[in-house]
């Protein structure tokens, strides 16, 4: 399975969808700051991994997939849900990478510059997430047939 970067896919995103993401992201960042100031960094830090973006992105993804199928004359509403479920599976893998991000940030932030510490943490997040995703693709990481969404029809002929 090859990972593709298709910049033309961005034109499917509508302005209000961008606005929703901006609002969600901005709101949770502002709220996290307020919580940390009010209740301290131990409590506020939990919200750095709050699923701020997933509800909006999964909902939009489901809608896009349904519209795509509708335009193709296919009345299968399950496709959108399956795409969103695959998104959730990716998020579960990404959250393991996020543990690595937080660990590196925790250790490096006090002893190096913020830019270097956060850049290193971001690289670790990407490395762990991509590694687990690839292992998962090759069925080395999880037991066969234990993947939830994977047991359903793939979203595209290429799989998900």
């Amino acid at each position, binding site marked *: 399975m090859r*990972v593709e*970067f*298709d910049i033309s*896919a*961005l034109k499917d995103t509508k302005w209000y969808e961008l606005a929703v*993401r*901006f609002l969600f*992201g*901005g709101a*949770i*960042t*502002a709220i*996290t*700051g307020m919580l*940390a100031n009010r209740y301290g*960094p*131990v409590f*506020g*830090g*939990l919200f*750095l*991994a*709050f*699923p701020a*973006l*997933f*509800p909006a*992105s*999964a*909902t939009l993804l*489901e809608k896009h997939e349904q519209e795509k199928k509708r335009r193709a004359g296919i009345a299968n509403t399950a496709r*959108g*849900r*399956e*795409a*969103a*479920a*695959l*998104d*959730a*599976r*990716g*998020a*579960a893998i*990404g959250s*393991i990478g*996020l*543990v690595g991000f*937080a*660990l590196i*940030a*925790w250790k490096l*932030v*006090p002893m190096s510059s*913020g830019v270097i510490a956060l850049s290193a943490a971001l690289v670790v*997040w990407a490395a762990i997430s991509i590694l687990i*995703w690839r292992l998962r693709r090759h069925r080395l990481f999880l037991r066969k047939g234990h993947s*939830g969404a994977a047991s359903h029809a793939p*979203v*595209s002929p290429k799989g998900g």
Partner: protein
Amino acid sequence: MQILFRFIIGGLVVSLFAAFADALKPKSFAGLFAAAPSVAIGTLGLTILSEGKLFAATEARSMIFGALALFFYAMAAMRLMTRYKLNAAPAAFSALVVWIICAMGIWYVWLR
């Protein structure tokens, strides 16, 4: 004023990660970006500048547990969509209960 600044920076970073994810295929790979550290980068960067490195490092340590809660959240959302056939919005929003229970439970037992 600082809250407004956080709002704008956070919104921009999250939008950037989301746009990057939109252009990626397959969907399970793009899904990794639903757990991207977009909020964390914006928040920790601003916290380092405003509150100092130790404050930010303490937030990052708590984030480890928030990320574990996010794992259970994502698994629950996936389960609600695949097994219980819930659409994305009700699944994603109702699974927030899982994140809150996990994160608050860990905070109450270990971090408080």
